[in-house]
């Protein structure tokens, strides 16, 4: 193929073959033993450590780092997984700069935190590489639980339930388990099919059956699940997307960023993926940054993120924004899309600058136009396909305590449940805690 970065339109193969391999390789490769030792030595083993409080799953970080520094990363992995069974994925995808590492006393003192995420990966990778699954199932209880959604929330809940001896059946609408671990996370954060490897490892606990291609609402109903099982956990994430509400948004080559990313994640050969020469991404979160960065990595010449509010309001962290900038992505803030121009497919997109007033955001008369042969919408995902009869809070499933919904015997957690912050690690924490609550209530009745 003879396409280059300058080829007009939306085409594949803009880069030499070797570039794809390089671009989608591990962003922060695993530490070797020496690096891990040096990094671990910096930990002060703080009392009541702030990092531990900041971690939504409350991993005992000082303890696991001490275990690494004394030459037992295997024991460190057990410490991590006892709190967070997807500690391997979290080590790769957690925005640590907003979580544990942000509050590390060395970040506060020197601006250089202990590299907790990478140490966590070193430990979990070490024991996973040995094929060891260090947890065993309790005696079977005879109780069964249905888990809907095989994302981080559903997987964490399932593992904990199985460990307590319950039999778990997971139903997921997609063809593969993993949720956004498999279909959403940026490719360079979890390369080499890590999501599936981690699931295979997690399933070693036993007692979990996964049924993919089964959609709640289409193939199964909540009523049937409640009849057939002793409890139900919903971890269905956010399957819908917000509409842009700009004129012409139905033109060709205007699409949801999450679909683009899912396709990219599933493509074994990234050079076959068509990408525009001028790509515009609308939004200000992690999805917008990931879509923009990966567009650039696929060879787009110009990639621009346009966000309607001020930069400090972007939900993508400063670290993520800087990462995007380092890849050559341009970020424009304080502008909202007015209309999409083009004959069939998008050609350019018109924006108005916004004014942040007392009663919200208003459009100013000042406009500008960006050339675009591809537009990605990343303005937020929404709950979709939730069963009837569940009380909602805002646009998510209302929960009290450890994920109890308004229906008896039905729990929910992860992105689909109210509260939380739409992070993988939070989904894991909520799934785990709901599982403990389910376990307690099933055993109380036993």
């Amino acid at each position, binding site marked *: 193929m003879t396409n280059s970065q300058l080829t007009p339109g939306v085409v594949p193969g803009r880069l030499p073959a070797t570039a794809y391999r390089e671009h989608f390789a591990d962003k922060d490769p695993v530490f070797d033993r020496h690096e891990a030792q040096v990094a671990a*030595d910096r930990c002060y083993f703080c009392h009541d450590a702030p990092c531990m409080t900041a971690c939504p799953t409350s991993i005992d970080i000082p303890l696991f780092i001490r275990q690494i520094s004394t030459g037992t990363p*295997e024991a460190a992995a057990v410490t991590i997984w006892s709190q967070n069974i997807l500690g391997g994925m979290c080590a790769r995808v957690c925005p640590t700069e907003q979580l544990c590492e942000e509050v590390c006393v060395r970040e506060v003192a020197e601006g250089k935190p202990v590299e907790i995420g990478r140490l966590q990966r070193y430990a979990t990778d070490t024991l996973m590489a040995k094929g060891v699954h260090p947890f065993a199932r309790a005696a079977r209880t005879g109780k069964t639980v249905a888990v809907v959604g095989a994302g981080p929330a559903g997987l964490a809940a399932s593992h904990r339930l199985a460990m307590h001896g319950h039999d778990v059946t997971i139903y997921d609408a997609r063809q593969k388990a993993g949720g956004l671990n498999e279909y959403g996370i940026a490719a360079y954060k979890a390369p080499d099919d890590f999501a599936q490897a981690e699931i295979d490892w997690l399933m070693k606990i036993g007692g979990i059956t996964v049924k993919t291609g089964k959609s709640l609402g289409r193939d199964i109903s909540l009523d049937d699940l409640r009849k057939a099982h002793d409890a139900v956990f919903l971890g269905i994430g956010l399957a819908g997307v917000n509409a842009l509400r700009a004129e012409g948004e139905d033109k060709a080559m205007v699409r949801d960023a999450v679909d683009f990313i899912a396709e990219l994640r599933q493509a074994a050969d990234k050079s076959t993926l068509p990408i525009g020469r001028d790509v515009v991404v609308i939004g200000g979160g992690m999805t917008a940054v990931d879509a923009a960065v990966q567009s650039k990595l696929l060879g787009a010449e110009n990639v621009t993120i346009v966000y309607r509010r001020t930069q400090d309001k972007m939900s993508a962290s400063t670290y993520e924004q800087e990462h995007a900038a380092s890849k050559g992505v341009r970020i424009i803030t304080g502008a909202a899309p007015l209309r999409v121009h083009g004959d069939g497919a998008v050609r350019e997109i018109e924006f108005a600058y916004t004014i942040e007033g007392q009663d919200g955001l208003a459009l100013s008369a000042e406009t500008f136009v960006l050339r675009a042969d591809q537009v990605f919408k990343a303005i937020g995902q929404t709950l979709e396909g939730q069963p009837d009869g569940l009380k909602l809070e805002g646009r998510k499933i209302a929960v009290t305590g450890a994920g109890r919904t308004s229906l008896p015997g039905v729990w929910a957690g992860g992105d689909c449940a109210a509260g939380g912050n739409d992070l993988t690690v939070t989904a894991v924490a909520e799934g785990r805690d709901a599982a403990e609550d389910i376990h307690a209530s099933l055993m109380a009745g036993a």
Partner: protein
Amino acid sequence: MADLTSNFIGIKSPNPFWLASAPPTDKEYNVRRAFEAGWGGVVWKTLGSEGPPIVNVSGPRYGAIWGSDRRLMGLNNIELITDRPLEVNLREIKSVKRDYPDRALVISLMVPCDEESWKDILKRIEDTEADGVELNFGCPHGMAERGMGSAVGQVPEYIEMVTRWVKQYSRMPCIVKLTPNVTSILPPAMAAKRGGADAVSLINTVKSITNVDLDAFSPFPTIDGKGSHGGYCGPAVKPIALNMVAEIARHHETRGLPISGIGGVTTWRDAAEFMALGSGNVQVCTAAMTYGFKVVQEMISGLSQYLDEKEMALSDLVGRAVPNFVEWQDLNLNYVTKARIDQDACIKCGRCYAACEDTSHQAIAMKPGRVFEVKDDECVACNLCVNVCPVENCITMETLPLGALDERTGRRVEPYANWTTHPNNPMAVKAAE
């Protein structure tokens, strides 16, 4: 998970990690929290005689030395034995032991060197249900000036005499805690054994001054312009403690005498080393004082992982390295190794070069591109380069097989032979004609 259950002279504990008699075991509040954190046992902070309690200074009582990153390497203290009333301690000991029957609780004692004092204190502690007593013949400061602590531990006859009294007036297992402030640890250990001790524990702290205040011209910790020597402990004293433990473990007169190893135990690895050199269990003070009670969790996970990997029981570890602790004259002088630098692991700092070129045997070549290579014809295998290299396992010592050529001496590697038969030794034992 390996079984870490420990039985030390009949005293059972869920793991071999005990807290040494010191501030961490000073009172009920601490000891309960220590047990909650996972410690297998404690030796209660040393009790004195009935009467007005001991008085401590109210200025600083610690001095310290630090490694890089201000990691605490050595701690020195001028604290005395417990300064709380005897009855309060006894009541608390009883209450803790009742609630934690599975943990070891040993009472440390230090009273004046006369039979009545010892008889009296042993009677008073009788109904605490404690598992044993430890005789503090170790404190090198304060109490020693009053004829107790290391003042007893430095005179083998006193050790033997007091131990005998304790065995006569009490049925409890008796551990004698030794001071390292002696030229040889063997006479005190032998005396304890003669007196009937069930075990010895060592080391207590080493007499020390950690630093001097260069404005006040006083040793530190400075109390109103003056300083006194203290007792030194922490990672820095571990090598001293290990050697003393090992000497007792291998000497034909003391071999088999149970040992509770103390001195700088900070990680599972330190504990395993003490046990390999003959300690039945270990006691910890400074590591807990530096990092809090939670450190024991790493010791537990680390030791059990190690035992699992070695497929060894805890009891197999105890004393495992003792037969290999020999005199210098028994070392194989025909054993030849050479340093090897792993070029992939090398970070090109050049420290090995500086060390060998300036202070050893000029056996490392620095080549273009900062490539460092060992010259086999110069390397005497001292392993200084290994020790100064910041990257673990980057430089290793390779053993030359029998018959291989040692390029430095031009000779082939021969079978075992030591100094006792070496031709350069004027006292060499001649092989029978």
